[in-house]
């Protein structure tokens, strides 16, 4: 009952079913026995050999014994978990039990959640099954319980990650073989890296992971990137799996967009923390130099992905229209993330703008401290280089907006998000090649460079930071943006698709019009 309340009735049902179906079988019992026997044998052989031949201290023996135990455990995890995760969704589809599940009112998200908890339940059982073997370490004086619990935690986190990726593969490929191959491609390199690192750097020293972290502390920047990265992979995989299992008419884009916003904020924050404003005396303009450059590269690349959002399907998904029609409070709260119409472009532009906002904010922080901390500094030179910096940022920003507007235009024409993004970026690649070729062959005037702002910026940077930026480049990007948005609105009107309002035509009567020609 408590579990049911915590996990939600439907997810709890899936967990219960998964555990019964997986553990009750005879072959499951055989796997458990073989697993325990392998772990036990390896540890026993090592214990005997160490007791008879080695001159190392008992504490080192104990730690190495635990190390061997966990290496065998990790191999088992990388065999069992990918398999269980890869078949998690495909078995439901192949056994034709998916329709009754959905028909019972379960949502894809609940099923994915239940599947993950079911796999983790089996993993928990498998990890603890041979735990009594750790008592062998008492032959050598024993190992700290805290160190063992930490090892278990790391294994559990690694297995959770593999399970999430496996469920994503299962949901996206809908084929057991392909899903197993995909997860194996992720799990095997992870296993090789982990075993190599643990055996050569940790266990061979006669210490466990917790001791290793205490003796060789890792920089905080590593954790600042690793923890959000891990959470992104876990949460993103589960949301991706739900996304693949929900129909295109579902509200699946809303959590994806919310997660994307969080990711953008975290990544921009991490970049700024790592290479951002340096307020130390003598380090007055890092945003104009290194930090700004890193951020420029990030925003330059992010537009490729953001075009996917801008060019999404123009129609409002049915589920979103249903939520909006009911006037639920979440329909106001989540309006920023609702796909369809002009919101596709605006959402991408907001993410795009976050990067520039952060960069400008950091520059202002630097500027407000530089004058007092470094009075001898020539502020006119600083202002001049800052002007160039802002001109570059302006060129980059307006160019990005024009790419997003182009992707949005293609979305209104009826292309899906990926095709629209490819077309919008393809046009930019084509223009860049055209400009670069024209410049190399000296075929056209310099004004041709305005067609491709990124190429223009690269050439200007090569010429020196003091080069004046042509305002026409910004104007060309703004003109292209205006043209694309106007064209998109006209096409949307022609196709009967609302640009701003969150509705679907005919919802009050019939669902859609009868197809023409019938």
């Amino acid at each position: 009952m408590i579990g049911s309340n915590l996990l939600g009735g439907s997810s709890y049902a899936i967990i219960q079913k998964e555990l019964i179906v997986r553990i009750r079988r005879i072959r499951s019992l055989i796997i458990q026995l073989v697993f325990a026997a392998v772990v036990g044998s390896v540890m026993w052989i090592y214990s005997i050999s160490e007791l008879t031949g080695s001159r190392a201290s008992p504490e080192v023996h104990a730690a190495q014994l635990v190390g061997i135990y966990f290496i065998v455990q990790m191999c088992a995890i990388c065999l069992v978990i990918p398999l269980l995760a890869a078949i998690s969704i495909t078995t439901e589809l192949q056994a034709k039990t998916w329709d009754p599940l959905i028909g019972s009112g379960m949502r894809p998200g609940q099923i994915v959640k239940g599947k993950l908890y079911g796999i983790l339940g089996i993993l928990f059982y498998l990890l603890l099954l041979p735990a009594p073997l750790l008592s062998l370490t008492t032959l050598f004086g024993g190992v700290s319980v805290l160190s063992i619990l930490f090892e278990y935690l790391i294994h559990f986190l690694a297995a959770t990650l593999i399970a999430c990726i496996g469920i994503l593969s299962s949901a996206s490929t809908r084929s057991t073989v392909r899903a197993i191959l995909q997860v194996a491609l992720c799990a095997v390199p992870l296993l090789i890296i982990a075993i190599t690192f643990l055996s050569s750097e940790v266990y061979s020293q006669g210490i466990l992971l917790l001791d290793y972290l205490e003796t060789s502390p890792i920089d905080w920047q590593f954790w600042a990137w690793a923890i959000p990265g891990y959470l992104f992979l876990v949460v993103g995989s589960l949301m991706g799996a739900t996304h693949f299992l929900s129909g295109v008419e579902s509200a699946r884009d809303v959590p994806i967009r919310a997660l994307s916003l969080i990711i953008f904020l975290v990544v921009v924050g991490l970049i700024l923390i790592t290479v951002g404003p340096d307020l130390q005396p003598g380090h007055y303009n890092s945003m104009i130099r290194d930090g700004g450059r890193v951020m420029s590269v990030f925003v330059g690349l992010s537009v490729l992905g953001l075009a996917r959002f801008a060019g999404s399907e123009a129609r409002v998904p049915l589920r979103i229209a249903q939520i909006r029609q009911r006037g639920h409070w979440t329909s106001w709260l989540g309006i920023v993330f609702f796909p369809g119409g002009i919101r596709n472009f605006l959402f991408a532009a907001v993410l795009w703008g976050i990067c520039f906002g952060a960069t400008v904010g950091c520059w202002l922080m630097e500027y407000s401290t530089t004058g007092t901390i470094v009075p001898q500094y020539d502020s006119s030179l600083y202002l001049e280089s800052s002007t160039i910096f802002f001109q570059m940022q302006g060129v980059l920003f307006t160019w990005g907006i024009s790419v997003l507007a182009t992707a949005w235009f293609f979305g209104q024409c009826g292309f899906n998000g990926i095709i629209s993004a490819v077309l919008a970026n393809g046009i930019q690649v084509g223009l860049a090649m055209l400009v670069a070729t024209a410049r190399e062959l000296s075929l056209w005037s310099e004004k041709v460079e305005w067609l491709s702002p990124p190429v223009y910026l690269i050439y200007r940077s090569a010429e020196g930071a003091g080069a004046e930026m042509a305002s026409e480049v910004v104007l060309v990007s703004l003109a292209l943006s205006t043209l694309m948005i106007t064209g998109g609105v006209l096409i949307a009107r022609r196709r009967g698709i609302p640009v701003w309002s969150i509705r679907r035509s005919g919802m009050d009567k019939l669902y859609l019009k009868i197809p023409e020609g019938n």
Partner: protein
Amino acid sequence: MNESRPSIIEVRDLWMSFGKNDALAGISFDIPRGVIHGFIGPNGAGKTTTIRILAALQIPTAGGAWIDGANVVTEPEEVRRRLGYMPDYVGVYEGLSVMEYLEFFAMAHQLPASRRRSAISDVVELTDLGKLLEVEVHVLSKGMKQRLCLAQTLLHEPDLLILDEPASGLDPRARIEFRSLLTELRRLGKTVFLSSHILSELSPICDSVSIVEKGHLVAHGSMEQIRNRIRSGDVQYEVTLVEANEDVEAILSQIPGVSRILLEGRKLSFDWSEDDSEIHQVWAALASRKVAFTRVRRHEDDLENLFMSLTTGEVQ
């Protein structure tokens, strides 16, 4: 349950296109409450597509469908609460017992823990699965699996059951048992909407039928309405006389509405073109001439004949 609505299923101009192929081309019909309705058609006619749309598992290209007033497109959760859906293939979980299978779906339907046991015992009693509760699902016969699947669809006490080819693959005994189960459900006030291509199975239990072909509804209504629609105008009667009588032909030929009189020994047959309520004239004429007869049989058009009359056999 929305008792104020006379129809539990309302379908209007339902279209479903897969590329250039229209699986459904604008079908419309209503199904009243408390009936067993047969949805029949050849393979590829659009039966399963219609059923999946009604079960809110597929979104139509156009048109609308309502289950007890809930729109299958705009209110899918409400629709799923109001109906029980049994697909054409019964998928089961290897390793679960019958009891565990039902408990799983009771939780999936989000029945409160206090109601689960009673709901399961009710459906087990109805479907006669009581002796199999501890048996693993995958060892059940096909007929028992069908019963189990039906039990699962009844757990949340829906007013409407939508069954896709429930009798396919069942042996004759299982079919008869399943048929009586459906009749019992009708007695309990449930509406049953079932598709099948085994027409002889539907004839005895269906109150009404819809016949679809190539995505079009070619007939819809009660069995009687459909018979009347395709009837050529004449009904054939067969009469078994007590003894052969050559005068019978002359007697009947004087009655308006009688034609194609055929006498073979004691077997008399004739076509009747007038309303059935006027047939008493024939019996009165025979009685007045002291022509005794032991048996009268009115030739009914069974569902198979109706189906053959209404469909062309073309596949999309």
